[in-house]
């Protein structure tokens, strides 16, 4: 199973600033995903980040607001740009374990980054 760490674990930021969240995996993975989870809500997929290609964003999310880097098979960053209080949320990194024997493949999730924008 993949072990995922995220930095920072939490942060409080001012409106208009940007924050970059790092996601590190202990094994090489092709597919990485970034999710947002607002208080009391389910997870919403922001984008899929595959190494060697541009990230694919879901409806309602754009690259200018959430630029993503994927420099290698174990690391990715998500930047939340020009933040507003509405961006206050938990941001989670996830990877799909291609080594899993289960045909449907299993996704592993990081612990999340709790962001508060004032």
């Amino acid at each position: 199973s993949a072990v995922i760490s995220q930095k920072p674990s939490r942060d409080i930021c001012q409106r208009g600033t940007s924050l970059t969240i790092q996601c590190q995996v202990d094994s090489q993975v092709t597919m990485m995903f970034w999710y947002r989870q607002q208080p009391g809500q389910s997870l919403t997929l922001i984008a899929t980040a595959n190494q060697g290609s541009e990230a694919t964003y879901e409806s309602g999310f754009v690259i200018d607001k959430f630029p993503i880097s994927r420099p290698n098979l174990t690391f990715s960053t998500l930047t939340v740009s020009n933040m507003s209080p509405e961006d206050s949320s938990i941001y989670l990194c996830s990877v799909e374990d291609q080594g899993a024997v289960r045909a449907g493949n299993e996704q592993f999730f990081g612990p999340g980054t709790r962001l508060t924008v004032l």
Partner: protein
Amino acid sequence: LAKTTQPISMDSYEGQEVNITCSHNNIATNDYITWYQQFPSQGPRFIIQGYKTKVTNEVASLFIPADRKSSTLSLPRVSLSDTAVYYCLVKTSYDKVIFGPGTSLSVIP
């Protein structure tokens, strides 16, 4: 991606068996049914996955009827530590995971 429907919330007393049913009427032939568990302030965690019939592991059982249009997650003898949100998902390999609202399970002493 097949859409799933499950109860928003459930309550149960400690020691009881809990069954959470999920509907997925438009499940595709290549889709697998997967359940995740999420505790507060943590990322979701894989519980169990199946394609048809019954699957059992050390945590739960998953019952899938022949038409695969629904599935039931069974948690035997729940404890307070099983209080969490449970998500039912259907997907194929390498498909993105889209979460529904999940079922918030509260275990009562």
